[in-house]
């Protein structure tokens, strides 16, 4: 069973929840608009990084299964540039808060970690043995 699209969908849902919280904070506390604005731009950048990573993983998995040599790399430079673009737009152009932007960028990887650990523990609770029949 392919769990990656399901995990990506849940991570995107949490990122949209963070975005809605940022919009709410932007509207309710006008004095902290630079914090909430930076956080929202960081969350958008982190979500783009997660989508790009999942796309690269699927492409590499396809090429490995079909026996071909992967033509492109892992795309770390692209993801780093997405993060840099989010930081530059937020801090240099719109003059939002830097710490809030960085927090927004790492929100998606942290959500991925928490959701992945939860799904792994649920799977090991429901199935005490793995595919080979060995107990964990």
């Amino acid at each position, binding site marked *: 069973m392919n769990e990656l699209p399901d995990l990506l969908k849940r991570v995107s849902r949490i990122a949209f929840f963070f975005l809605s919280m940022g919009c709410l904070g932007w509207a309710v506390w006008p004095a902290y608009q630079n914090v909430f604005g930076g956080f929202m731009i960081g969350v958008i950048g982190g979500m783009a990084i997660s989508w790009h990573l999942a796309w690269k993983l699927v492409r590499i*998995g396809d090429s490995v299964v079909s026996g071909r040599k992967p033509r492109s790399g*892992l795309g770390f430079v692209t993801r780093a540039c997405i993060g840099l673009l989010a*930081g530059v737009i937020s801090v*240099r152009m719109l003059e939002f808060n830097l710490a809030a932007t960085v927090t927004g960028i790492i929100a998606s*990887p942290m959500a991925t970690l928490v959701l*992945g650990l939860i799904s792994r523990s649920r799977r090991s609770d429901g199935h005490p043995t793995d595919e080979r029949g060995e107990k964990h």
Partner: protein
Amino acid sequence: MEIYALLAAAIVFGLGALGAGIGNGLIFSKTVEGISRQPELRGSLQTTAFIGVGLVEALPIISLVLAFIFMSK
């Protein structure tokens, strides 16, 4: 002062990228090895790699953003 800012940015991003390169190499080599050995486990291996790579790459991306922002101030 500017040369120290450039040096600090280079050290921050260089050390972050060094650790991320080693971590990414380990994760993807084991993932590709596992998929080629057992293609039916591709879904769970890709999910594990997604979690690991997302965490490993978070630090150099943050260090790159901080380095460029502090360097350009």
